[in-house]
């Protein structure tokens, strides 16, 4: 924690090596979030570099931000949505009120040996069948390990809705595992 504070102070002073470390720390989580919304590698890369560029431009205030991961994910979410809107501009009939789909990242089988490859495949397939918002919330809860309150703030939904989506995902997966 002390290290992170020091790193942020260095970044605030314009230290690019420290910023490089900062990117290492948060990059993957932010990338899979953007990829989930955009379902396109190049677009996601563009958005994520925009997110970190935004962080660099705001480097002086970084040490004061309390929930950094949530802050980065909020920017990633908003930039991804506006990217989608821009892409769809030529087709004005489509309103991107709600994200039409969310691509959940493919997960590797954990090394603890408790679930096998077959079960892993089945879980990934089961997640695919969940509604987009549910996958989106579940991604932020599971991979980014964000507190539900922060997820609610990022997606501008209620805390109860976040709880509902996570428990839906959990019970679907549990049922699949029980019947396997």
């Amino acid at each position: 924690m002390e290290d992170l504070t020091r790193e942020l102070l260095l970044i605030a002073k314009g230290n690019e090596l420290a910023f490089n470390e900062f990117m290492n720390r948060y990059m993957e989580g932010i990338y899979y979030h953007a990829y989930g919304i955009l379902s396109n590698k190049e677009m996601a890369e563009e958005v994520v570099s925009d997110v970190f560029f935004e962080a660099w431009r705001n480097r002086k205030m970084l040490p004061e931000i309390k929930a950094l991961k949530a802050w980065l994910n909020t920017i990633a979410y908003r930039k991804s949505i506006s990217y989608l809107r821009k892409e769809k501009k030529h087709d004005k009939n489509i309103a991107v009120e709600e994200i039409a789909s969310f691509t959940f990242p493919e997960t590797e089988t954990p090394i603890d040996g408790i679930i096998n490859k077959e079960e892993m495949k089945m879980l990934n397939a089961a997640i695919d069948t969940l509604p987009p918002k549910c996958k989106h919330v579940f991604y932020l809860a599971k991979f980014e390990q964000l507190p539900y309150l922060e997820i609610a703030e990022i997606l501008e939904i209620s805390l109860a809705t976040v709880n509902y989506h996570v428990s839906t995902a959990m019970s679907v997966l549990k049922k699949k595992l029980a019947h396997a």
Partner: protein
Amino acid sequence: MEKDIINHQYDSTPEDLKLKSFVENSKTKHMDITTIKQKTFMKIREEQRRQKQHRLFKIAAIAAGLLLVVGVGLHFMMRTDSISAVQYADAEDTNTEVMQSVNVPVGETMTILLADGSKIIANSRTELLYPKSFKGETREVVVKGEAYFDIAHDESHPFIVKTNDFTVKVLGTQFNVSNYDHAASNVVLVQGAVELSTSNKDVVRMKPSDKVDISNGSFTSKSQVDPNDYISWTEGVIHLHGETIQSIVQRLNHHYGVQIVCDDHGDTPLYGKLVLQPSVYDVLHTINDMAHFKMVKKDQVIHLVSNL
């Protein structure tokens, strides 16, 4: 209601054990993040370039204003202050080096990676001139302010740091140059060997941990120091081992481009660590906690006076 997924209550059934393993231990596939990092740094460079152009434009505007008012005076100014006039080599000619210039904003530091793999960290308010790529027999950069150099070894192309008052010639090494004030400049060698020559033709060979002081283009003294004390600014701190408030105030004046005058207690020694925060006032408050004085601001000058 749950607060987060980490505190989820699992049953002890086999399916719940598996679910727990999935939620807590399955990771996403590792990805190559270098492309995104490169993209980000390109955006950062692009912005720095734009800001520099903006700054040059402002300087040009001020210069144009001066030209109207002072006329001939400008010619004299440009001649005496050779570093502030940025010179661009002709980009068409592939044999000349295209020079780049950097002005570090107040309170910030900037890391510059050179074409030969050398690294320079420039301190607050430092002006640095360096070529985009090295083409001649020697690798030359110009510095005014303070910078830490970590130079890639290349015996056939000596690296030369130029200032108004002295030059440092190296083959590959780490050292710090401070010349904010040409009456009190210094060079501290961390590793390797360098040769320093002043504009008044003094030549000094330096060993690791040597500190050489230069005043108005003349060598004044050489001493052994702990190099870490002289490069800790690259990490945003100053280590204090009994330096007087007077001498620290001097460093802060250079770093933040302010004018602080110590009216009382100038020789009080300070111990500990000073974090170079974005605002000089925060730093002064820290010193205040150690030394108890009062800050009085008068016509852009900050006076430190006795609290008693």
